[in-house]
């Protein structure tokens, strides 16, 4: 099976006011069709920067990113982003118009077809009652749902999610995770998901890429079935195994 998204030897750098920061160093990974691929690592491992590069907002200084065999050079509707920020919806458009606008301007759909499709996906995230509300009338969780509906309605090759639930309260976050998995069961979309939460990665992901910090390098790539499975070789639960891998140095220090 060939990879849908192929990230090969990608080094990313960005400039702050007085430093040149290397965010990731020679990162490789492959995302297959219908993967729920999670980029996991502590803050400073360049996972968000990596996602931005896949989104086309940054150009790697070394290595290539190819989607369906075409190299990624600029942002485009074939890679829809879902952000963490609550202001990612256009405040001057209603929920329905927000989803429709993506379809008419990004996917160049006719208004009628766009409306039908928008309502279909708004219904999938259970917001039909709020289709004509403006974003400022919605709660944080609802806004995140609209952003997901917008992303899914575009039916992109891959959905990019940048810690989409990080700004939500714990109860809402758990509900959103369940809903996302349910949506995946329905349509089997491909998603690249960035998070710093190990339990979230284990729950959401089918495949988890662990990144080490400063600069981000690939530490491991693991499978997950969402159940926090026990590793037969070591007898450790997946979350514990990841915990050990990411924070191995600190654990040793504690034992000394």
């Amino acid at each position, binding site marked *: 099976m060939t990879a849908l998204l192929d990230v090969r030897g990608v080094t990313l750098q960005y400039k702050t006011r007085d430093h040149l920061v290397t965010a990731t160093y020679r990162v490789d990974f492959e995302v297959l069709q219908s993967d729920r691929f999670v980029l996991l690592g502590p803050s400073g491992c360049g996972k968000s920067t990596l996602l931005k590069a896949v989104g086309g*907002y940054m150009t790697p200084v070394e290595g290539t990113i190819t989607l369906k065999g075409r190299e990624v050079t600029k*942002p485009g*509707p074939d890679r829809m982003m879902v*952000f963490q920020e609550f202001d990612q919806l*256009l405040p*001057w458009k209603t929920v329905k118009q927000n989803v429709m*606008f*993506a379809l008419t*301007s*990004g996917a160049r759909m006719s208004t009628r077809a766009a409306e039908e499709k928008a309502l279909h996906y708004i219904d999938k995230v259970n917001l039909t009652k709020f289709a004509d509300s403006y974003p400022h009338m919605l709660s944080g969780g609802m806004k995140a749902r609209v952003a997901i509906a917008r992303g899914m309605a575009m039916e992109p090759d891959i959905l990019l999610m940048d810690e989409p639930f990080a700004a939500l309260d714990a109860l809402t976050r758990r509900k959103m995770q369940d809903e996302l998995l349910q949506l995946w069961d329905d349509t089997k979309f491909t998603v690249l998901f960035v998070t710093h939460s190990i339990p979230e990665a284990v729950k959401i992901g089918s495949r988890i890429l662990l990144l080490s910090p400063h600069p981000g390098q690939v530490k491991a790539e693991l499978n997950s079935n969402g159940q926090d499975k026990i590793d037969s070789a070591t007898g450790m639960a997946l979350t514990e195994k990841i915990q050990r891998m990411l924070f191995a140095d600190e654990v040793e220090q504690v034992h000394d």
Partner: protein
Amino acid sequence: MTERPEFVRELATDNAFGVVQKPLTTFERIWNQGYVRKAAILVVLALVWELYARWVNNELVFPTFLATVDAFWDGIRTGGILQRAGHSIRILLQGYAIGLLIAAIFTGLAISTRFGQDLLETLTSMFNPLPAIALLPLALIWFGLGTGSLIFVLVHSVLWAVALNTHSGFKSVSNTLRMVGKNYGLSGLGYVTKILIPAAFPSILTGLKIGWAFAWRTLIAAELVFGVSSGSGGLGWFIFEKKNQLEIPSVFAGLFCVIIIGLLVENLIFRTIEARTVRRWGMQT
């Protein structure tokens, strides 16, 4: 110390509550309307004016509110005050429109190139503090005694205020919204009109309001200096004429007219735009 006891309570059922929501009284609802409160302020101001003028009791210095209204009414019927106002507004709209157009070109340059941004920032910091009326003598030499000079100073008073606000509005559009726009594959003009302009609309609207006020001020002041263009002057000239004829109530009537037009434009036009855009979108409370 003994441990505090735990407890669990049965919640009251819905029908056990008394009043949870009660409608506001009629007075409260009326008072919640912005225009009612503002009208009340205007009534009080008129009352204070009337009482003070009666106490001063000198029509040459400070005519009463009623005398002013009378002169205003007279001006409308016979003195052609509406005609004068119409004349002023026509020139004003021309200057305003040209100012907005040039402001749009400058901000367009400023958001698309770094040089354009430097240019706009330098020009605004040079010309924004310069009172438009100070350019009038120069304008008279360049464009002669006529509409051309008025329009020139009007453009100058509108242009920098609008360009400054619009540009700072564009600069403060959140990075997330920019990325969302790019994500849809928008670029160039589509990106500006569909993402940047609506997102910066609160600032743009403020710029339009400030520009309008500046233009109106500048025009009346310029007309006071010279108003005789193409046979009939505007409102500023009306005020100047009446002062020379010592018809002080008519001078007040002229000022009154300036104020009324200001109130109408602010409350009817700009407020309606605000209610339909930035307020509905929750970008301003």
